[in-house]
């Protein structure tokens, strides 16, 4: 086992590289990045990193996959990770959905054709997403030809955006300074 200061630094760098790499990272690649070192030396060091890391018996392990090194969780914790993935808060709304939601929030009650007129693009799937997320709700029908459904924001919408009521939505005037410039 290498004990020199330099080797310790190299091994730590290898560990960091394995961690950030999206794909299994090969010894050749590691050698190249670390400054044209001998790939065999680097492989020996990487194997030491792997052995020491795995000897800890923590929740993670480094394995050799497809000719490279990869850090992953140990299989026995997959159950708990699945539970985590199920419960984790979702990322942001897609830009399309956010925009559709914005148009509905500011122009409610509003029909699908009207939304599409403003956005200049098909908004069917965004409206569907927003309905599924319960951020918008149908608000009756518009008394025009075809009697299209009108949509408005829900209570869930207020909760998620931390609004007391719709009057708290920022208005153009609030951000006027930012817009004119």
């Amino acid at each position, binding site marked *: 086992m290498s004990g020199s200061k330099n080797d310790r630094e190299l091994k730590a760098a290898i560990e*960091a590289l394995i*961690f*950030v*790499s*999206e794909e299994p990272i090969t010894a050749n690649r590691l050698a190249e990045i670390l400054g044209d070192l001998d790939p065999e030396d680097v492989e020996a060091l990487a194997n030491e990193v792997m052995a020491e890391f795995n000897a800890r018996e923590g929740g993670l392990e480094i394995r050799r996959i497809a000719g490279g090194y990869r850090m992953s969780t140990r299989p026995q914790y997959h159950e708990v990770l699945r539970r985590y*993935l*199920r*419960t*984790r*808060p*979702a*990322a*942001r*709304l897609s*830009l399309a959905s*956010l*925009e559709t*939601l*914005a*148009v509905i*929030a*500011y122009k409610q009650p509003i029909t699908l054709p009207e939304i599409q*007129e*403003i*956005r*200049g693009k098909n908004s069917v799937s965004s409206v569907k997403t927003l309905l599924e*997320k*319960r*951020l918008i709700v149908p608000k009756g029908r518009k008394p025009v030809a075809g009697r299209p459904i009108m949509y408005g924001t829900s209570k869930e919408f207020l909760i*998620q*955006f*931390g*609004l007391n009521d719709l009057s*708290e*939505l*920022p208005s*153009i005037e*609030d*951000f006027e300074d930012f*817009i004119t410039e």
Partner: protein
Amino acid sequence: MTDPHRIMPEEDGEPMEASTGLSSSPYKVKLDVFEGPLDLLLHLIKKEQVSIYDIPIARITEQYLEYLRLMHEMDITIASDFLVMAATLIYIKTKMLLPRSPLTEDEEEDEDPRRPLVERLLEYQKYKAAAEMLWSKAQVEQAVFTRPPLDLQEAGTEIAATTYDLFEAFRRAMERLKEKIQLEIAREEVPLEEKIADLRQRLERTDRLDITALFEEARSKRELITIFLAVLELVKESVIRLVQRVAFGQIIAIKVNRSPSTTERAP
């Protein structure tokens, strides 16, 4: 304390860049560094090596005004904040020249007219220093990497968007709509009069126009309607008459010769 200006050049600062032509000016280098009147005052205080707690107000005011004059000469737009501060300085200077009121026995009421300004400067200095602290913290964080995002499907309901995002999204949609409308109006604005004049001109060169081909020139529904209206207008004015040889066939516009002596050459 290091000077943050040196390590961190301004990216989106206010329009204060000193222009060329005055490179010999001792002020030049400093000018592109100041952002506001408080920064300028702090700089002057430091440069003159005077105490912030006992500012020689006449001297500093004079220097401050000198900077404004220089900025003006260099065609730098002087933000109103600078002028407000100039007025404040002059006010303080005047007040200091007045003899202290002998009637006022209450010490507090007869406080140093510089005091509110000094307090503002002291307060502002703290945030300047705090900004530097934030800068160094961000430096450390930028040297840190996290795991690449795993390929996981999205689920859940919580939304990471603020009312600002919502407002921005709405504003962008409305702006797009405005642009679209303007574009359409621009296209619509091939005015009828222009179309009519255009047709008249063509009729000077030829006696007959293929209306079907004319319609095909239209790049939009709007323009098509404009052409149609122009043709109708010319028919109404008896400049042309329309002839169609067979049903659904080609429509030809034939110039009507106003001269009574000329007979119509019907097809």
